[in-house]
């Protein structure tokens, strides 16, 4: 398996020359992955598959992605598409992500019996992806 650092290298293709300091390693999060930076790529069918974890129960470097968007914000997202976080700095985006994830899990769990099949599946996938949350 690649080291975590290999998965944390970020690019900002829109302004690499203006702010080279933004071409940085992501924060101390063990789950980040390098991903395509075009938003449509995040919707591509192969996106989730490309970062699937095969190591059930073990921390995987593939559960989250972080990109710098066209507004210069960091956007953190999980491979399930269940939650996302936004921030002006990586740390802020990751913190926002975890807050959003916990809020979404609580929201979906409170409605578990009324969820559509797709949302019920997403809830199961999030619980499998983040056991114990």
């Amino acid at each position: 398996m690649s080291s975590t650092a290999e998965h944390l290298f970020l690019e900002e293709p829109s302004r690499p020359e203006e702010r080279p300091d933004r071409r940085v390693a992501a924060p101390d999060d063990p789950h980040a992955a390098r991903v395509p930076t075009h938003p449509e790529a995040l919707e591509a069918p192969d996106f989730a598959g490309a970062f699937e974890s095969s190591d059930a129960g073990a921390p995987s470097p593939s559960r989250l992605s972080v990109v710098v968007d066209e507004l210069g914000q960091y956007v953190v997202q999980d491979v399930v598409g269940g939650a996302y976080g936004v921030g002006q700095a990586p740390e802020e985006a990751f913190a926002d992500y975890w807050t959003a994830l916990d809020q979404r899990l609580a929201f979906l769990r409170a409605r578990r019996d009324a969820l559509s099949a797709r949302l019920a599946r997403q809830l199961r996938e999030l619980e499998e992806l983040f056991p114990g949350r």
Partner: protein
Amino acid sequence: MAAFKGRVVRAALTGKLGFGEDRSGPHPVYERVHDGAVVGVTHMSHNAGGRDLSDHELAAMARQLGVRGPELRQAIGCAISGDDFLALLLA
């Protein structure tokens, strides 16, 4: 691609797209219920109201809803009706 202000997205979701809003948590959550079933849930990042939402943010919201980014953008921009967007949520 045209950017949308957070308040425009919120107005579209809670207006013609028929989402309910829950502001009790750290992020405003938008929930679409149809025939007693929850068929779509998304949230907006805090302080999103007065600023532009990036394509990545809208794409992330679309993924939460199980639709494609362009479909969400078209729904916000009135190129897709509320009924057609509901059909996408149910697909």
